[in-house]
């Protein structure tokens, strides 16, 4: 089948052979066990270990019913344009691809696999035994650790040598380090109490504790099979991680990554049905020693107190199919997006009660959210997938908890970025055509779109540098670069190459909590 083989450069050929031979050997006995392993090794990090879907659609007998095996085979071979689905041509043999299609079309969605506190504990890997041997300050030139920007590079195949967390100095726009993560990095969070520690979570629910001073991973732990949820407590002592597969969350010691307590995620959903639930966002807040976690399917937000026994307060009926959220007002107000109700629900973390449900366009995905003070008002900006005829970005007054405006934009959006010192709020257009190459800039005073930038690739996850002078955007999918703009002139000033960049996370966020807030807001939290 590999007719082009003799025309490929030798080095690639050797790589190809080493790639294909062991897999080919595996697949000769075409058992479903082998096919399952092939699925786990190539597909599961995006499509879900349980075949139920994660960042990509579920692949099971039910979801693929009636689909042509030939069409599926060619889709696997060529990949799917305008998505993250890569071409597996040359990575999997034709027999393997045919076998996989058959396997997927006959395998039901799997039951939740177990991943217990003991599994988590025994998954800990230690790369640096004695942390006292680590350097006392950064081994590279940087004025402030706030200037560090981390990018989750997925790697073309969602795994492999391109999958890493890349760290950049946002003053010079030069890469200062990279941490290989094996599978696609998804979330990067920073320790608010000690600027040297970062935590990188992958699509396969592994968390790497990273020493930013020496730019290396010191430990890792596997908290589940899939799931992006990750938060760090304000005192820097705890991290909490949540999974789609299995349906649980865990609090870890932020220092050792030892699991301290797991939580089974289940509850009564807004329609009165008892359900087991994926973990949505998890957030630590400067407001209190707590974590908040969204139970996606149960429509509940749980507040976990970081004290003996980690007791839970459950807030019910927040909305149908919750996903992500952001903080405001010193971290005392939590804005949670509900996909299915197309609302953002404001929660008071002090009283642990719902304040109000606000309109949020169609299928709100707020990313990290954005909050910025404009003429004395605290304005929140909310993006949404926009799967309806109304394509808008919602602007809310978070003091009064009311909708100020729904700003028309050119398509669906996934993540906003604002900064106290930057004139524009950036939103990424994700509609699946040429628009996906662009971001739009909303003037934060007039609340109108004033500019569209063609970033390239699939442009998403804008983020400002800590000083607000530069806007970073991922030219994702096959764009393979992070593009940097001057945040006032909107001129392109730099590009940093990497494979399939996605989320961008400024270290400055531990000081301003949510993109757009000034560090003054944080003083109010104390």
């Amino acid at each position: 089948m590999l007719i082009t083989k003799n025309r490929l450069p030798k080095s690639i050929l050797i790589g190809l052979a080493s790639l294909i031979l062991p897999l080919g050997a595996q697949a000769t006995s075409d058992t479903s066990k082998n096919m399952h392993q092939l699925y786990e090794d190539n597909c599961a990090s995006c499509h879900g270990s349980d075949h139920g879907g994660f960042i990509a659609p579920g692949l099971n007998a039910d979801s693929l019913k009636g689909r042509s095996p030939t069409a599926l085979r060619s889709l696997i071979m060529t990949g799917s344009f305008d998505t993250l689905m890569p071409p597996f041509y040359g990575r999997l043999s034709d027999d393997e691809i045919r076998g996989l299609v058959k396997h997927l079309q006959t395998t039901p969605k799997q039951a939740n696999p177990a991943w217990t506190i003991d599994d988590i504990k025994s998954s800990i890997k230690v790369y640096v035994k004695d942390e006292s041997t680590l350097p006392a300050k950064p081994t590279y030139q940087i004025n402030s650790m706030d200037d560090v920007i981390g990018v989750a590079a997925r790697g073309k195949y969602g795994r492999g040598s391109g999958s890493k967390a890349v760290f950049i100095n946002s003053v010079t726009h030069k890469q200062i380090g990279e941490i290989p993560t094996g599978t696609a990095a998804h979330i990067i969070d920073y320790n608010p109490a000690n600027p040297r520690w970062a935590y990188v979570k992958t699509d396969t629910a592994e968390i790497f504790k990273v020493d930013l001073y020496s730019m290396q991973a010191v430990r890792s732990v596997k908290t589940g099979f899939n799931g992006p949820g990750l938060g760090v407590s304000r005192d820097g002592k705890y991290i909490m991680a949540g999974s789609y597969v299995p349906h649980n969350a865990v609090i870890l010691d932020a220092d050792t990554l030892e699991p301290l307590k797991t939580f089974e995620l289940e509850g009564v959903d807004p329609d009165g049905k008892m359900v087991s639930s994926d973990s949505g966002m998890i957030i630590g807040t400067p407001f209190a020693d707590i974590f908040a976690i969204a139970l996606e399917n149960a429509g509940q937000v749980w507040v976990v107190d970081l004290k003996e026994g980690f007791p839970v307060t459950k807030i019910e009926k927040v909305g149908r199919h919750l996903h992500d959220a952001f903080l405001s007002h010193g971290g005392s107000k939590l804005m949670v997006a509900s996909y299915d109700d197309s609302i953002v629900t404001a929660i008071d973390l002090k009283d642990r009660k719902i304040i109000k449900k606000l309109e949020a366009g169609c299928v709100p995905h707020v990313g990290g959210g954005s909050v910025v003070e404009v003429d004395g008002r605290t304005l929140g900006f909310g993006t949404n997938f926009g799967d309806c005829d109304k394509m808008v970005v919602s602007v809310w007054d978070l003091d009064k908890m009311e909708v100020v405006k729904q700003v028309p934009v050119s398509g669906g959006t996934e993540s906003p970025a604002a900064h106290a010192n930057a004139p524009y709020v950036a939103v990424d257009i994700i509609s699946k055509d040429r628009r996906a190459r662009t971001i739009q800039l909303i003037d934060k005073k007039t609340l109108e779109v004033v500019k569209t930038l063609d970033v390239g690739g699939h442009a998403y996850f804008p983020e400002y540098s800590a000083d607000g002078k530069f806007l970073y955007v991922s030219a994702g999918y096959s764009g393979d670069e992070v593009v940097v703009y001057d945040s006032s002139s909107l001129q392109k000033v730099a590009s940093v190459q990497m494979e399939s960049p996605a989320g961008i996370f400024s270290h400055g966020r531990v000081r301003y909590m949510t993109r757009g807030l000034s560090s003054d807001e944080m003083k109010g939290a104390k």
Partner: protein
Amino acid sequence: MRLSVLSGLLILGAAQSVNAASIYAGEAKAAAVCSQCHGIRMPSADAPFPPLAGRDMDYLKTALKQYRDKTRKSDIMNAIAGSLSDDDIGNVAAYYAKLKQ
């Protein structure tokens, strides 16, 4: 003097019409059709696809035309090149040839 300017212009004009290639159109086509496998500047380190950036323009054009008329065989490239017009091929080749790895 005037003559040399004129002939310069003629050559320029001729060169343009020969190439008639738009690297902008090439960029769009490459992003939509080629980059999925070959990347823009580099394919993935894990991918078995050759890089195209900086390759000779005529080589790229010839290769794409051979794939299109199936004198050069590849399941996948025969299908993909089959969707490209002469202009597309010229544009894509001009774009990739201009790029640095």
